[in-house]
């Protein structure tokens, strides 16, 4: 058993001080990084509750429920920022990357404390796969919101559509990573490959 709240406080305090010392985009990134960490903790609470309430079991909750809960938790602050402040595309992407990085970092730290830090290979795989996956899924979500605004597509269908894309991506990753051998190898490669594709799509969109 670990005390995630204590870890969050210890990680958040220096970052919180940083918010007062930096400006503009750097401040935005730090704030959303903090929000991402808080979203991770809240997501763990919700997943834990569903695990107990629905009786899925820890493994099935991690594979099937966590992608839905975690993506929703990451999406909510981003959606609030998008709807309330109407940021431009760059600011929205900064916010998205901040939330994704904060979420992934906090999850990685908690995972490391739980499973140990002896194997550098395992930590690198986890860092690259899970870290990149959270950033990619929320970047894809932000891309969906940017496209929805660009093509003047608003409403529940567009928002839920964008959210589902990231949930499905995260769900496919979790499902593949839960297996052994080739399926987990494909799962671990999936975020990096998708990261490259999303980056290229964003560059193309910016060029237009």
């Amino acid at each position, binding site marked *: 058993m670990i005390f995630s709240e204590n870890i969050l406080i210890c990680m958040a305090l220096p970052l919180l001080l940083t918010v007062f010392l930096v400006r503009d985009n750097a401040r935005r990134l730090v704030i959303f990084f903090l929000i991402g960490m808080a979203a991770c903790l809240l997501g763990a609470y919700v997943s834990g509750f569903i695990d107990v309430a629905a009786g899925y079991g820890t493994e099935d909750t991690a594979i099937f429920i966590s992608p839905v809960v975690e993506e929703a938790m990451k999406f909510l602050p981003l959606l609030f920022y998008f709807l309330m402040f109407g940021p431009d595309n760059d600011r929205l992407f900064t916010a998205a990357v901040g939330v994704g990085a904060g979420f992934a970092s906090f999850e990685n730290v908690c995972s490391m404390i739980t499973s140990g830090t002896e194997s550098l290979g395992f930590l690198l795989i986890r860092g690259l796969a899970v870290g990149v996956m959270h950033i990619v899924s929320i970047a894809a979500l932000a891309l969906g919101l940017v496209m929805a605004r660009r093509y*003047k597509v608003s409403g529940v*269908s567009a928002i839920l559509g964008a959210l*589902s894309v990231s949930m499905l991506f995260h769900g496919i990753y979790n499902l593949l990573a839960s297996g052994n051998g080739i399926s987990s190898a494909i799962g671990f490669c999936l975020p990096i490959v998708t990261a490259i594709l999303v980056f290229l799509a964003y560059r193309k969109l910016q060029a237009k």
Partner: protein
Amino acid sequence: MTVIQISQISVSIQIAVLAVLLGLTVRLVGESARNLTAVFLSFSFGLWLLTDLYWLIYDLMRPESRMPFAANEIGETAMSLVIAAMVNSAIRRPTRLPMGFLTGTCLFAVSNAVLWILWSGEIVEDIIVGVVYAWLYCSIVRSLRSEQALTGTKWIVLGVLCTALIVCQSLTFIVSEDIKNIPDLFAYILLIAVAVFFACLFIRSYKEKLAHVQMFLSFALVIWITTAKYMSGGNWYNLFLTLETPGLILWFLSVRKAVKAV
């Protein structure tokens, strides 16, 4: 070859076709100066592709177990909403749906949802999907009415076929096991009959070169095939699953035709 293996092959083909169609639709979005229907079509294909992929991976990794609530159910619900938004975006002459049509369509959707619940026991999921499908069916009926794609008599025929289908499906839960196959077979015949009905109308509109009517009929045809898939099991499920793929190609071709005609 087992029923599950046939499903996996059908879904794999559908994924490959969807990947190609997604690429073509993204290109169509650029060519059509960001036409909204084309944008929604690309969203729909993207979601369809991911839900298929999720289902296939699950089926390959856990072939013996029934899938619990997972991300793909939200994906399917979102996909239905996006398809409804696509249908609504393509309507040129917005019209209100008369009360009779609205009631009939909603009754059909509610009956479907009740039958799904009776079959699977997943109450919350089926209610949510039922509500979304009611919205989707209403959008399709509204689009067909806006283009006067069906005459009064054809609407009555469609209504009678749908009612007979719900009656036959309901009977399978009521009658004894010995004679259950009879209403079941009739239900499948009716599912195919309505699909053929929409396919014939589609071919006629193709000959008459009515781009928008053709597009809305292709939407109706594919959504009907999807509904039929959800109502079926075993080899019948595979049949409708396989029929979806050419239906998706028809979607793309008819949307492209309608978008270019604007």
